[in-house]
Each structure stands twice: as structure tokens, then as C-alpha cells.
């Protein structure tokens, strides 16, 4: 198993470690519920050093063909994404964030679970050169509704980044205005010892350390997918209603998506909200039931401390994509009322 290089400082801060995608990472610092609310009300930081980070170099047209969104006309310093690498069947190899460094080099952030698969896939499908930076830099996100009360304001528009900048007393490799929580903030890549210094400073300033459980509940409130749970090599972006592609350009998997747009789909991703005060959490593979028959399935779920209820997402048969209607979710023999909802859930 891999381990974050920030482990020492995170243990000092009370981190409770667990395994995620082959990495030992802080899952929480005592209470994910409080960490979640810290992001929605103030600010918190997350260690994202498990995420795959690749430098890709080569011909622009060749790279652009691999990516489902247009990258060719994006200027240096822009992030393109979330977008995806797709199979010929139009299903997800991975959903990724692309950072345009210049006309012949790009950074790509992959899901931790897909890092090696993506490296091999790029090499197999192109002549592009891939360098794995994952183990060279630690990565954190600082996110929150009041993030600029705690952080030095960055002169970056959302989804823009800058390389090699000094920020809050540390030398960064990459600084971006981005995140995956629905709140404003920054993501920072830097040498582990630099980030360690920054984390101690942030803790003193009152930025709450947060673990991957809070990150998961925050992304579910926003309706953001997690690879391996909500999308995989058997799901297409159309079924996931995850608009990570542009039909205006050529890309690997485009023909399959075009065919699916023509023929239609059998399932579509949907959100669910249970009743306030409900304390049983649906689980992955819980059945969504209507009139005694299964009409859908849960793929992710959690308890939202912001909405005080369990929430989640899953796939509905398109014949029963009844946004706003209440259905039952079957959990351990119990039938729980759940409202079919669109994203974001907050």
C-alpha cells in the first residue's frame, strides 16, 4: 500500500488513517460531520496526495483526440474539466482534470485507482510521453465558503492555475483555484516538506483538517461522481449525465456516444434525498423500488450533516426517471422513503 508523505504532520493533527484506492490516507480527524460543516461554513484542508498526477508531452492533436472535451483552443494556465478518457465503447477509462501547460504539454489528474491504467492506456493509444509526478509532490485542497478569510487571495479565476509560484510562504509546483466540494478554494501541489509547513500554519490559523470521508459526503451533496462507485468501464457519460465531452470535436469513444445519443439509453443517474431525521443509510446496491418492482439501484450514499438526512445517487431505469417523485429504497429489509432529486442536492 502507498502512504501519503504528509502522514507525520497529519498524525500530529489527530488524523485517523484508513485505506482508499490502495493508499493509506486520513479518513477523518475525529468527526467527518464537523469537517463537512467546516467546509460549508468556514474552511478546511484535505490531503489529496493519493490522486494520480501525470505530465504528458507530445503532439497537440494526438492528446486532444484522447480527451473527450476540446483542449486545443484552451490557453496555457486553463484547466479543462472535469473531462474523461473513454473506451471505444464510450465508457469511462477515467474522469480526469486536464491542465494546459503549453501547446505540447499537459498535466492530468487521475483517480488514484486508475493511475497505472491511465498511464498504460495513454501509451497504448498514442505516441505521447507520460511522466508520473504522483510521488514527487504532495497535493492538498483548501476549500470553504469563507476560504478567503483564512487564505491569501489568489489572482486566479476559477479553473485556472499557475506553475512555480510562491504562495503563503511556500514554494509550490502548482497552484490552482479549484476543488471538488462545491465551495471556493485552492489546490496546491508542492514538495511534501513545503506542504507540511503550510498545513501547520493553516491549522494555527483555524483551518480545519478534514479527511476523505468528508470529501466524499461533500461531493455527494454536489452530485459529483466517484470512479468505481458511480461510473466505470460499463457506464457512459450520457448514462451518468456527466457532460465531460463535446460532440463538436473528434475523440476516442465519440462514435459510441453518437450511437447512444441516437438510440437512447436504458438508465440515467439520479440523486436521492431521504426524509429529514431518517437515520438508516442506503448502501451501494440498495434497490430503488416502485409499486413492488425494482426500478433503479444506489451507487453512492452517505449522511449529509448539512441537510440532516441520508442522501446519495444511483441509476434509474429511464422508464422511471421520475424527478421529484418519492420512491422506496430497500435497506436491510426496511423500505425507506426517498425523493428522486436532481443535482446538486444542496
Amino acid at each position, binding site marked *: 500500500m502507498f502512504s501519503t508523505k504528509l502522514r507525520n504532520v497529519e498524525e500530529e493533527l489527530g488524523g*485517523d488513517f484508513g485505506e482508499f484506492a490502495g493508499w493509506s490516507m486520513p479518513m*477523518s480527524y475525529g468527526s*467527518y460531520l464537523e469537517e463537512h460543516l467546516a467546509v460549508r461554513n468556514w474552511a478546511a484542508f484535505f490531503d489529496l496526495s493519493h490522486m494520480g498526477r501525470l505530465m504528458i508531452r507530445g503532439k497537440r492533436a494526438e492528446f486532444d483526440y484522447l480527451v473527450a472535451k476540446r483542449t486545443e483552443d484552451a490557453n496555457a494556465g486553463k484547466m479543462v474539466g472535469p473531462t474523461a478518457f473513454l473506451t471505444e465503447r464510450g465508457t469511462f477509462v477515467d474522469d480526469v482534470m486536464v491542465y494546459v501547460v503549453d501547446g505540447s504539454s499537459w498535466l492530468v489528474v487521475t483517480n488514484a485507482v486508475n493511475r497505472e491504467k491511465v498511464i498504460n492506456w495513454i501509451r497504448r493509444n498514442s505516441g505521447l510521453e507520460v511522466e508520473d509526478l504522483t510521488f514527487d509532490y504532495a497535493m492538498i485542497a483548501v476549500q470553504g465558503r469563507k476560504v478567503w478569510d483564512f487564505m491569501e487571495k489568489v489572482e486566479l479565476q476559477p479553473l485556472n492555475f499557475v506553475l512555480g509560484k510562491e504562495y503563503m510562504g511556500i514554494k509550490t509546483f502548482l497552484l490552482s483555484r479549484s476543488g471538488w466540494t462545491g465551495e471556493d478554494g485552492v489546490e496546491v501541489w508542492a514538495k511534501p516538506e513545503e506542504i507540511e509547513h503550510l498545513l501547520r500554519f493553516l491549522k494555527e490559523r483555524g483551518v480545519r483538517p478534514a479527511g476523505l*470521508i468528508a470529501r466524499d*459526503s461533500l461531493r455527494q451533496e454536489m452530485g459529483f461522481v466517484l470512479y468505481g462507485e458511480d461510473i466505470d468501464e460499463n457506464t457512459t457519460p450520457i448514462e451518468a449525465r456527466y457532460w465531460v465531452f463535446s460532440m463538436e470535436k473528434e475523440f476516442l469513444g465519440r462514435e459510441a456516444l453518437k450511437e447512444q445519443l441516437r438510440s437512447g439509453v436504458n438508465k440515467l443517474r439520479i440523486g436521492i434525498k431521504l426524509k429529514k431525521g431518517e*437515520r*438508516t443509510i442506503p448502501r451501494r446496491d440498495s434497490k430503488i423500488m416502485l409499486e413492488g418492482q425494482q426500478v433503479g439501484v444506489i451507487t453512492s450514499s*452517505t*449522511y449529509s450533516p448539512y441537510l440532516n438526512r441520508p442522501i446519495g445517487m444511483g441509476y434509474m431505469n429511464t422508464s422511471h426517471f421520475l424527478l421529484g417523485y418519492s420512491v422506496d429504497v430497500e435497506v436491510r429489509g426496511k423500505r425507506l422513503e426517498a425523493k428522486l432529486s436532481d443535482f446538486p442536492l444542496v
Partner: protein
Amino acid sequence: MERKSKYLVLKDRLYTDSDEWVKIDGDIAVVGITDYAQKKLRDIIGVDLPKPDTRVKRGDPVAVVESVKAAADIYAPMDGIISEANERLLDSPELINKDPYGEGWIFKVKLTEKPEGLLEAEKYMEKIGE
């Protein structure tokens, strides 16, 4: 506890392999989950409680403690009859996190025979690697 441990284990009670604690007072056994168990489950969101007067056998799943991580079965540590369930947990399941050996107790069993196979505190500490 003399040394600083990650998990609290109290000397005045007995333990199960499945991380319940038992405090026996006459013919009533109070049952909850250990500090180790609550920390592994993390924030507890809900509980399913047993109904009083239910007859239970050692090893029966009788309650469920629900967290984002898992819905964990809580087993009867001995044969007996459920005499009471901690209904405060229905609205405040976080009591199990805050005070696993006190206000976070889960149910009480009226013993029908002498409990067997429970672990002393030292044995339980060995089991969880403390």
C-alpha cells in the same frame, strides 16, 4: 489507564470478540460497544434497537449501529431476555461516540444463565493490539 492508549478499555467489565462490552450487575447485563469499535465505525448516525421482552441467544444479532462506513450488527453476548433498550440513542446516536461506556450503552439483558466465553479487559486489550 496508566499508559496512554489509543483506545480506552475499562477494567470493571467484560468483552466479546465482536467488540461489545458487558457490565454485569446482579442478574442484569448492560451491553454497549467498546471505544475501539466506535472509533473504527467513526460518526454514528443511527441505531436499530431490540424490543424489550425478546428472548435472545448468545451470538444473535440484536441491534444495528449505523455509520457511513458500515451498518454493524451488535450481538447478544449471552443468553437472556432483553429488559431495556437505550431509547435516547434513537435521537442522539452520537452518545455512542461521546461516551461508549456510559450514556452510549445500547441494551440490557436479564440473564437466564451464567454468561460464558467473555474476555477480561487484559485479554480484550491484547485482541485489539493495545
